[in-house]
C-alpha cells in the first residue's frame, strides 16, 4: 500500500514550470491536516487535479466513471469503505477524468492518489 512513489509531474509550459505534487509525498503540503491534495493547485494553465483517499480501507469507483468523463465539483468519484462505513470521494473542481490510478476494490492508505482530473477541460 505504501510502496507508491511520490510522483512529481513536471511540465514546462511557456517558460512556466508547473509542478504537481502527488498529495503530500513528504508531508509538507498539508500540515494543517487538510486531506492531501483536495485543495486546488495554486498556479498553472493546465493541471492534473489529484483526488486522494480520505480514509484507510477499500476503494470502489462510482458506476460509469472512466477516462474522458466530464465531472463537476461534487461529482462522486467513488468511496473508501473503512470498517463497513463508506467515506465518499468527490471531485473538488470541474474537469475531465484523465487517469484512473487506483483499481476498484484495492486497499488504499490515507492520502493515496486515486484519480487525476484535468481541469483545463476536454482536448
Amino acid at each position, binding site marked *: 500500500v*505504501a510502496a507508491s512513489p511520490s510522483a512529481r509531474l513536471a511540465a514546462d509550459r511557456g517558460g512556466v514550470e508547473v509542478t504537481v505534487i502527488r498529495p503530500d*509525498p513528504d*508531508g509538507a503540503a*498539508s500540515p494543517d*491536516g487538510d486531506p*492531501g491534495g483536495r485543495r486546488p493547485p495554486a498556479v498553472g494553465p493546465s493541471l492534473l487535479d489529484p483526488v486522494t483517499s480520505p480514509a484507510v480501507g477499500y476503494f470502489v469507483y462510482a458506476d460509469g466513471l472512466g477516462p474522458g468523463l466530464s465531472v463537476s465539483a461534487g461529482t462522486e468519484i467513488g468511496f473508501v469503505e473503512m*470498517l463497513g462505513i463508506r467515506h465518499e470521494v468527490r471531485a473538488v473542481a470541474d474537469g475531465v477524468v484523465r487517469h484512473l490510478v487506483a483499481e476498484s476494490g484495492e486497499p488504499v492508505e490515507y*492520502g493515496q492518489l486515486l484519480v487525476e482530473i484535468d481541469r483545463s477541460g476536454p482536448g
Partner: protein
Amino acid sequence: MLGKILIANRGEIAVRVLRTCRELGIPAVVAFSEPDRESLAVRQADEAICIGPAEARRSYLNQPALISAALITGCDAIHPGYGFLSEDASFAEACAVHDLVFIGPRAQVIERFASKYAVRRMLAATGLPTVPGSRGIVADLTDALAQAEAAGYPVLLKPSAGGGGRGMRLVRSPREMETSLPLARSEARAAFGDDSLYFERWIEDNRHVEVQVLVDSHGTGIHLGERDCSVQRRHQKIIEEAPSPAMEEPARERLRDLAIRSVVAAGYENAGTLEFLLDREGNFYFIEINCRIQVEHPITEMLTGVDLVAEQIRIAAGERLSMTQEQVALRGHAIEFRITAEDPHDNFSPQAGVVADVHLPTGDGVRVDTHLYPGYEIPPYYDSLLAKLVVWGEDRAEALARSARALADFEVDGVKTNLPFHRAIVDNAAFVDAEVSTNLLDRVGPAAFVGEPA
C-alpha cells in the same frame, strides 16, 4: 505466536518495537501520519501505511483508521507503544471485536486498573502500602480534622472528580484545614460540578520509584527490579536509573516482592509498572499502575538482558513467561537520559526543524534508542523526545563515568536539544550523590543546571 503486527506509534518507540519484531521474525507494518512519511521507522519497515494527517486525533488516535490499516495489511495484532492509545480500554476492546490481538492488557484488565482511586483500594487490599489519607470522601470539617490528625500533616486535599492536579490544596495544620476545606469545596464545585473531597498525606522530598512486572495470561508473574525516576522537571521524567540508589536491602526486596504479589493477586496481565513514592525514611507508598511499556524500559533491559517488548508480544499471544523469577538476574547499574528537542536556555521551549547532522555515542554499555538520522526533519506536532541514551556499568560510578563520556560524544546539529542540561546534571553533586527528590529541579530552577548559552 503472532503472524503480523501493526505498529501504531511513531518516533523512537516505533523503531524500538520494529526492531524486536524483526528479531522475532514477525513481519510488521508501521502506521504513520503524513508528516512522518520520511521517519526512520517508515524507512526501516518492509511495509508502512499512512493512516491520516498530522493531527493525532485523525491519525495516531484514530481508532477506525488504525484497525482498518491492520486489517487491510493482513495483521493479526497491534502494538500501541506508549502514549496515544496504549492504555485506552476502548481501543483494546475495538481490537478484540475485529479479532486483532492488542499487545497489552486485555480491555477488561485495563478498565479495572484505570481508576487511580479504585486501584489504590484494590491493591491496598492485597497488601501494598498506600499513602495514608482519608477513608474515602471527607464528610465535614470535624471529620476532616479527625482524619487528618490520624494520617499526619501536611495533607493534600483533592477533588474526587478532578484530575491532572487541578483544584488541589496543600494543608499544613488544623488551622489551615479550617480555611482550606470550604475554599477547596467551592473550587471543586465550580470546576467539576461536584464538591466531594478526599485527602492524602503530602510526602515532601519524595523520590519516585517504580517496579517493572510481567504477568502472563496464566496468572504467573515476575518482577524485573525497580527503577528510580526522581530527576523530573514539572512532573516529567528526565533521567531514570536502576537499581534505585536510594534504597537498601531488605526494603528493596520487600518492595519488589510486594509489588509482584499484589498485581498477580489483583489479576493484572502483560507488562506493567507500579509507581511508588519513597519518603526520606525509606517508606514506600503505591500511587498508580501503568498498563503499557514505559519510555524508560531499556534500563531494565540493560540490567536483565530481557527484551520487554518481546515478552509483551509473547504474553499477548497467550504464551507462558519464558523465565522464572529465579532466572531473572539483575546485574550492574543503568541510567537513561531523555534527549529532547527543547532549548534549556529558553525555558525548555520545544524546537522543530531539520537535523543537519547527528553523531550517536558508542562504546561498552552504551545504547541509544532513537529515530534520528542526518537530514531528518523534526515535525512540530508531536512530543519532543528525540533519543534515549541508555548507559550501563558494573556499578553506579562506572555508569556515571560512561554517561558523562557518552553525553560529551553525543552531537545533534541543526536543532537545539537538552544535551547541555544532561551534561550539567551528571556533573552535579546532588545527582552524583543520589540526593535528588522529584521536586529538586523545580525548586532550584533548571537554570541552575545549565551554563550561559555558548
